């Protein structure tokens, strides 16, 4: 009898407790299962990243350089036929398309690698994938720039840009004419050079900067030498005049003071001649060196600067790939 009133109270309590327990159990089982499933999925996607996507990216990159070389060769060959820039571009369109194809395949492969692994997550794999992405991006941008700006670079010293006009050579009969011809060539050449400064490839940009400054130097030196030559002609005239003055003074048996004055003036003239000469020598020497070094400057773009650039990417990218692989291995370690 004493139990009777208690029983109905305890019963719902027990039921609630039991339900709560069962729910808690179900919930914990669900959580555990989900974590396991998620972990499993992550494992699978990491294995996919390491074994397939990275390999696909490496393979896609491997096709870029041969495609670049094929395009450069095809364009140059077409241009040497001879043909205009436009015609040469048309005749190398297939190689250009192949290159574009190689680049876009590599970009797709990079996106595949980055999807799901680069997104916001602050884990180590994400960091490694971001760094990998940066390096690949830099590589692809520079290769795209290399191809895109090649016709412009290649045409600099052809008729199109007229930079070959900088080599005035024996076309001028005097230094003023040389200066005029140079400054005409420099005008059109500079325009093309400034356009090259906009290239996505830094080697072209750096070359364009140097060439721009070299042209400015040539112009200054050409002006100095032309002016010196004009001065010299004037000095010759002045010297003749002084010679006459001295002859005249001697004939007149002029005063010592007059002689001294003429001597002073002659001395001053000689100093001016000397200075003019030194300015001329300085400018002429630098002008000649500038012209002589220009072909080397052009050659260095491919033989040195771009070669170095490629070497840089070939050093960096494999390490980036290896680091991502090792990060995946570390995460998958069991």
């Amino acid at each position, binding site marked *: 009898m004493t139990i009777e009133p208690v029983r109905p109270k305890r019963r719902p309590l027990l039921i609630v407790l039991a339900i709560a327990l069962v729910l808690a159990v179900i919930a914990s089982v669900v959580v555990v299962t989900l974590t396991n499933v998620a972990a499993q999925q992550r494992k699978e996607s990491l294995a996919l990243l390491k074994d397939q996507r990275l390999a696909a990216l490496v393979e896609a990159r491997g096709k870029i350089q041969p495609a670049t070389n094929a395009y450069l060769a095809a364009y140059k060959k077409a241009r040497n036929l001879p043909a205009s820039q436009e015609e040469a571009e048309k005749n190398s369109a297939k190689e250009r398309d192949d290159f574009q194809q190689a680049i876009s395949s590599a970009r797709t492969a990079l996106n595949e690698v980055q999807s799901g692994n680069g997104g916001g997550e602050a884990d180590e794999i994400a960091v*490694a994938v971001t760094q990998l992405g940066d390096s690949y991006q830099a590589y692809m941008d520079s290769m795209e720039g290399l191809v895109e700006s090649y016709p412009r670079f290649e045409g600099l010293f052809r008729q199109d840009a007229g930079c070959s006009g900088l080599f005035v050579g024996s076309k001028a009969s005097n230094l003023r004419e040389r200066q005029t011809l140079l400054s005409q060539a420099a005008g059109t050449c500079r325009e093309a050079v400034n356009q090259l400064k906009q290239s996505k490839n830094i080697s072209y940009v750096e070359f364009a900067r140097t060439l721009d400054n070299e042209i400015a130097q040539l112009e200054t030196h050409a002006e100095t030498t032309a002016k010196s030559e004009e001065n010299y002609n004037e000095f010759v005239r002045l010297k003749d005049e002084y010679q006459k003055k001295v002859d005249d003074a001697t004939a007149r048996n002029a005063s010592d003071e007059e002689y001294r004055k003429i001597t002073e003036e002659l001395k001053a003239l000689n100093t001016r001649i000397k200075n003019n000469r030194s300015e001329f020598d300085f400018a002429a020497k630098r002008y000649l060196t500038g012209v002589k070094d220009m072909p080397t400057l052009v050659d260095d773009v491919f033989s040195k600067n771009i070669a170095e650039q490629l070497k840089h990417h070939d*050093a960096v990218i494999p390490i980036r790939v290896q680091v991502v692989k090792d990060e995946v291995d570390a995460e998958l370690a069991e």
Partner: protein
Amino acid sequence: MGDRSLEETVSAPTKGRSGRTVIIAVALVAALVAVGVGTWLILSKPAGDGRADVVRLDKHRVIVDNSMNLYDPLVQQFSGRYSNVIAEKAGQSEEEKVLARDRERIARESQANRQRLDHMAESAALKDQELAQAFNRFKDQYGAVIAYNDQLLVNTTNIYRSVGGPCASLHSSLNVASESYAQDYVKNADECLAALRTAKDGADAETVTLISAVEAVISGQRAKQQEVLDSKDSLERLAKSTTAAVALLDINEAFAKAQTTYETATKDKYSKIIENANSSNSEFESVLKKSLEQFDAVSGEGK
């Protein structure tokens, strides 16, 4: 009938109660089992993970070591680009572009490397005393490599800004035979000296030594050219300018000496840092290997 019904009424609740008790008991048992399974599932991972922690630590060791190889090409790229911008006077915005792009890339590199080291420091495997000691040495030595490269960025920037900037043209673009040479020299030297003074900010001891050596040479030459300017008559002027011109012949030697001293000092410093890093790496590697072998031996006995 009445008794039965009474019994019924008495026994009914008993029967119902025992049914519920059974359900509750079953539920409780199920719950306990499930919790047990869950705990086992969760705990089973770390339990078997002691070895995995070591494997992971070893992988991260390889990653950090491998990442150090990136500094060389990255620093080279930066210094090449920066020197072009300065030498060709490409302007403030181009200079900032190189700093923001190529120098920041290396700064991010260092940040990532430091994070890797910090992350390694959190590894459960470092509860092992021997591993912890080897790791700490590794962390210190590789931290030194990272710090060296960070400092190298500052040094490189400062040297190019001064020695490669206003000082570079001092002995190449002025006409020694020109009448205004002394005047031009003094003006350009002042710009160069001002740049050299700011270049010492943040630079390391070796770089400050180099910059001071260049500074001494330039200010010596500047003083001689100033004497030419201060001469009262043309005869004195001629004498002074001859002395100054002769002194100019020595600067190449002085610069070469400063450069050699700098290169030797930095090379020594860096090879020592690299040597220490390498030895801490192989030590850490062998301790990790030993730890893995221990795990394998234990699990071998288990089987």
